[in-house]
């Protein structure tokens, strides 16, 4: 545990979350390591997605959400400093379904940098190319950058979404079941991409696919009813779980 504290990129302490009167997270504490892939698993409704969305404060968009506890990213408490823009440029997000805007591929990837005030054409070109390369989709789309992003296949769209996220040069990328809407081949491509990306980024991924968690992640947290039941090196969680409920879940006895 000592070693992980040294490199903790995100440190969550005693986090509880309420939707109105309903509590969804119960004092969750968790340290997420830099440049590792951390998987969040658990049955649907266990709070894993809700937890993920607290890390870039996307839950702020929902009326009546109340949060207690601390989330520290790079030594800064993200709920105390009120600069959500800065937080979200630092913590990127990829959603369950590809959600590209109805614009060209180029404009989609350049969208975030432009919103940050980058207008220089050359600089934008460079960011777009780098990001698309970074998301391993450059070769497939380089000849059609100006055509609609919505004409791409679902798998391609999701990788452009990843490119759009890394165009912001974030430190952390949150992925909310990024392959649940994709076919097996596209899923495999995204998983390969995740393996590449962790050299540069800290990745937190929510998945309900246990093989995926086992394949891509370094550490795994098992959520149940808004609590963390077990958090350990992925291998241990899957082959040597300490808690009976974790074992039941990873062996498919419920969920």
């Amino acid at each position, binding site marked *: 545990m000592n070693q992980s504290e040294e490199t903790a990129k995100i440190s969550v302490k005693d986090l509880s979350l309420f939707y109105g009167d309903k509590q969804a997270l119960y004092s969750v504490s968790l340290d997420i390591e830099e440049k590792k892939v951390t998987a969040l698993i658990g049955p649907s409704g266990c709070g894993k997605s809700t937890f993920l969305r607290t890390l870039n404060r996307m839950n702020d968009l929902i009326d009546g959400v109340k949060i207690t506890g601390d989330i520290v990213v790079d030594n800064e408490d993200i709920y105390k400093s009120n*600069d959500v*823009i*800065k937080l979200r440029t630092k913590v990127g997000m990829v959603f369950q379904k590809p959600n590209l805007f109805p614009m060209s591929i180029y404009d989609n990837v350049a969208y975030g940098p432009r919103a*940050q005030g980058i207008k220089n054409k050359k600089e934008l070109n460079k960011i777009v190319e*780098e990001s698309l390369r*970074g998301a*391993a989709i450059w070769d497939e789309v380089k000849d059609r950058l100006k055509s609609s992003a919505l004409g791409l296949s679902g798998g391609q769209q999701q990788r452009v979404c990843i490119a759009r996220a*890394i165009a912001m*040069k974030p430190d952390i990328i949150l992925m909310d079941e990024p392959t649940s809407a994709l076919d097996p081949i596209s899923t495999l491509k995204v998983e390969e991409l995740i393996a*590449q990306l962790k050299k540069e980024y800290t990745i937190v991924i929510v998945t309900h696919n246990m093989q995926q968690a086992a394949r891509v992640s370094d550490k795994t947290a098992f959520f149940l009813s808004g609590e963390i039941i077990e958090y350990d090196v992925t291998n241990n969680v899957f082959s040597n779980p300490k808690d009976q409920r974790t074992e039941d879940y990873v062996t498919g006895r419920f969920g």
Partner: protein
Amino acid sequence: MTSPPIEKHNIGNGKSNKRKYMLESLSSKLFLLCALLSVLSLLLIVGFVFYRGSHPFIAEGYSFFEFIFGVDWVPGEDKFGIFPMIVASIYATIGSLIIGVPIGLFTAIFLSEIAPKRVAKIISPAVQLLAGIPSVLYGVFGLAIIVPFLQNYLGLAKGQSLLAVIVVLAVMMLPTIVTVAETSIRAVPKTYREGSLALGASEIGTIFKVVVPAAKSGITAAIVLGLGRAIGETMAVILIAGNSLIVPTSLTDSIRPLTTNIALEMGYAAGVHQEMLFATGIVLFSFIMILNFVLAKISARGAN
């Protein structure tokens, strides 16, 4: 598949976002202000009309009772009774509803349930379009065709009458009723029809016992809109009502509804006379509020 190392640059890092947050809060306040303008408009309208309209009764000693139930409207002699106009408005509205609602609803049912697809595809948009035609043109048509028809074939001395108003208002509300009702009937899920037909009900039986009741709230909305159009219509009515100041006792009487009274005299009215026109406006306003309220109650009861 290898990705080149991505160099960090200065996006977001260290830069202050103060300006953005300021713009954010400024813009949301601006949007709120715009939204509040509709509240302000409503308050201004209600305020001005009620203030001016209630002034004679509050400050100048006129009797509100005599205003509502008085049968003489002679501004030159300081007589302001709008009973004939109230009766005229009520008769004209009810009469046009009696004709317009069944024809409109039946047409809507026909278009959504019975008509061949190709036919409905031509007629529906055409009817929709007619809802947008200036109502004055309906009045012109009424004066040119319906009024002479009544004169010649019913032997009226003057074709401008309650009956002419009823017919023109009924025609005018048709496109509105048909369009709104048709949309709501089309929105009834197919499974309702299939369920009923599978139980051996006939097509027509299904339509009237299952589909129409399911579309009740939309149909009520259609009637409310048609009603609003009828009771509020002014300029078309002026052309065909005859504008006599009598309490109508038959369909062939010349009438002056509340709306036309305002439009006809506002141009030259001053002082108490003008305030009494605002008072007429209050009565009209209250009528519409009451009718909407009653219909909302009826449809709510129907839903239970």
